[in-house]
């Protein structure tokens, strides 16, 4: 299974899981602060999100009276699948201990598992809000997933492999690849899909509690205590790993190709810097755009899909 269990490689996994786990809530806090500052408000401190999580852990868990096992299981599934993704993908080093897991399609389906679990749990509450959130989430996932898969194929077509390590190493060796039309088109599709999948503007407003427009808030409305902490943490971790993936796929510089302590330290710092930069970009973007009407979202995702198909086409034509 694990061909050569190298102590260093295991260390890399522990490193990237812990770095991203610590970073994830801070990143969401940072995005909130950036938005507040741009809107002329003070905003909470960045570490407020960690404080909120600690507070939630002290509160009681409640479960809706008609719900079943699924409601309790979903938060665990959400965090567990996301953690597996964090452990599998090359974030700080191109070599990973799980050769057979660092595959882009695997990542997509693991993340899909988390969405499906949340959607089912929301239906399990038996409330109109749960159903609404679930229905909207699945409609968005159903249209975002194709765009994501096709965009991945466009990237994979260049190196004839969907292995993340191969893609990242390939673009490290051939930096000019990153300027080809297929990469730029795929980047566009990726960005739209990541915004949609992690419930950011212009698809969903993470700060809203307005019943008619919310998607992600509606899904987690009935959670409380440790379960809510897991859901909030899981969603922030998912956003962070998606941004880390984006940065390594399209801006791979800094990632460690050897396993020395120095290069790992540089790689960790560079990935944190890249993710923070991307998060700030997203936050700035969120302030400048308005949220789309729900029934205009499919058009945005269809746009992402067309970008991705064009990326595949240009990959083939250029080849």
């Amino acid at each position: 299974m694990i061909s050569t269990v190298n102590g260093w490689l295991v260390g890399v996994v522990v490193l990237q899981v812990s770095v991203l786990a610590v970073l994830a809530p801070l990143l969401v806090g940072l995005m909130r602060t950036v938005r507040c500052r741009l809107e002329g408000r003070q905003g909470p401190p960045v570490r407020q999100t960690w404080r909120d999580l600690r507070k939630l852990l002290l509160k009681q868990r409640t479960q809706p009276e008609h719900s079943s096992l699924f409601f309790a299981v979903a938060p665990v599934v959400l965090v567990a699948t996301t953690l597996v993704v964090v452990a599998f993908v090359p974030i700080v080093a191109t070599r990973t201990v799980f050769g057979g897991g660092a595959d882009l399609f695997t990542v997509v389906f693991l993340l899909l598992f988390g969405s499906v679990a949340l959607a089912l749990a929301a239906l399990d509450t038996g409330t109109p809000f749960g159903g609404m959130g679930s229905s909207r989430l699945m409609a968005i996932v159903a249209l975002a997933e194709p765009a994501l898969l096709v965009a991945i194929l466009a990237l994979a077509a260049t190196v004839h492999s969907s292995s993340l390590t191969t893609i990242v190493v390939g673009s490290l060796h051939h930096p000019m690849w990153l300027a080809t039309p297929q990469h730029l088109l795929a980047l566009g599709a990726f960005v739209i899909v990541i915004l949609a999948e992690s419930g950011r503007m212009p698809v969903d407003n993470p700060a809203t509690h307005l019943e008619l427009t919310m998607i992600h808030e509606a899904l987690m409305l009935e959670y409380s205590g440790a379960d809510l902490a897991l859901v909030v943490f899981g969603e922030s971790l998912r956003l962070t790993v998606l941004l880390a993936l984006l940065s390594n796929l399209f801006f791979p510089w800094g990632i460690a190709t050897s396993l020395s302590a120095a290069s790992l330290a540089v790689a960790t710092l560079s990935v944190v810097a890249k993710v923070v930069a991307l998060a700030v970009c997203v936050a700035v973007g969120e302030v400048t755009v308005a949220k789309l009407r729900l029934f205009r979202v499919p058009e945005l995702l269809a746009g992402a899909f067309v970008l991705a198909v064009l990326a595949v086409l240009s990959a083939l034509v250029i080849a």
Partner: protein
Amino acid sequence: MSSEAIRYRRGPSWDCAIVNQWLAVVAVLGFVGALAVASAPARYRARGVAVIVIVTSLCALTVAIQVLHTGHVARLVTSRVLPITGASLRLDSLGALFVAITAVVAIATAIFSLGYAAKHPMTRTFASAFCVFVTAMLLVPTAWSVTSFLFAWELMALASLALVLTDYRRGDTVRSAALWYAVLTQVGAGAIGFGLVLLAVKTGSQGFTTMASHAPSTSPWLRSTVFLLVLTGFASKAGVVPLHVWLPKAHAEAPSAVSALMSAAMVNLGVYGILRVGDTLLGGGPPWWWISVIVLGVVSAIYGSIHAATSTDLKRLLAYSTTDNIGLIMIAIGTAGLLTSTGHPIYAALALFAAMLHLVNHAVFKGSLFLSAGSIQFATGTRDLDRLGGLFRRMPVASTIFALGTIAITALPPLCGFVSEWLLLQSLLHGLSSTTTVSVVLMPLCVAALALTGGLTAAAFVKAFGVGTLGIARSTEADLAVEPPWSMNVGAGALATLCVLFGVAPLVVVSAIDRAVSALQLIGAPEVVRHGEALAINGAHGLFDPTLIAVALVVSVVVVVGARALLSQRLAVRRAPVWGSGRETQTARMTYTATSFAEPLQRVFDDVLRPSHDLDVSHRGESRYFVESIRFATRSADAFERMLYQPVIDIVRALARRTRLLQNGSVHRYLAYGLGALVVIMMFAR
């Protein structure tokens, strides 16, 4: 060694070995058993059917596994049955894979039927048709001559038709479904028969071996005609758009055990037919053959998944999802054919391997899902998702089985659907490397179809499982549901267990599929997937370890649960009423139904679905502003049914009306017809 020998005797055959006789045992057991259960008293009938089907299937499974394991070929030629031509049976590893799939599904459905019969007693017709249906399906992949094949094929069609008609007393929908099925399956059988007979006449033999060796020397026109004819026939059996219209009707109206058999075993034989005739008999063909297969697959996959995502009838949803999955398999088969003709045999083998693995996985998860739907229908009496809900707490075992099927079909790791979905994606990825003009246009289309299907399937099955079994019960029937008899859960659960097994450890089926794929001459590479530590694709980059993913998921769940226990001081859960926006009570009428769940997607795909809405608002007498009642009905009929079949039906009706002029009931006129006919005959027959 003749070319024929090279092509068809990959492995030695057992001469006079006991394995050959087992083929006869399967046939005799099945048919004699069918007679026996028909004459058995009612209370032993269900058990009789179970015993006959299980024993027959186990015999067939034994032969199939032997063939798959050793690569030998089982043969049986006898002149004692089927007058004039005799029967010719031959089981190679491609056929053995289909026999094995059918046998496993048949065993599970037979166990399921035991419990089902407790509430819905088996009629004589059902009992014997069930045995005949299973036996005929086991014989189709073994038939090695045109007459044997057509005999088994027709027997399968007729037996399944009788089974679809089981509940004919329930209403017109059953009869209409059976009529659609009968027409399309007979048109298909006619096309297959015509194509095979044409080839047999031109090659001078009806044995498959001789036909295959003479076919390459026939004219390309003939071969293309034959291929198009059999493609039409087999596509109608496989439920490929636009010949799929019988599928959602027949699958929905048939008893669930029959739907499971049809969807998990019978439609596969359409795929088998395309491979057997396109590859073995005709020896492959020009790229446009495979392009047409790909186009059919793309249309089926997209159309099926859109309908599945918006259906509210559980079994109709499952039927459309069958069309969708068969579409994916057709895409992969077409890609394999195309890649062979452009000189990429290794990638072609990969595509075919992915197609076969998906076929196996589809059989286990769709079989399990249809049986779960049967359990739900058994417990509640309805398959309308809008009237279900809250079943998970009332029937936990059956719902868990349904959940496993859902996870598998949604292609979520670590269950089986994910493995084949991954391989399908890989085969398309490597298909991209063949750079002909055609593939540059087609491959992105296939990729888009596969990707769109994946997302829509997730939405469809979150709806099916979530609305169907979670939340609040939406009707008294759902409220009163209890766990079905153990045998139904065992039948459905057995297939669900296979979903887990094939997902966590796919290596158990890999070598069998490798063997089946290598029986096709399209393929150059003997082994597609390197065995050993992980699924690694031969000759291509791609490494994937489903076992590792499963282990990682389990470890991760343990870590998360452990961390939660460690960090949180208050783990006890309080049951509390939900937030109702200030209202005091929540009723089931306020929750989302399947219709409302699918509404956003229905809106997106309005142009494809073209639903019709009826809205009746009646007002109170005093003022228009006070509404008394609102009735809203929405219906999305199959667009192909309306646009393609309705005109044909209208034309046939009009013709029938014309011919009715000849028959006005007057005896004098009929006598005049007789006289006229006699005169004509005497004029010409000298």
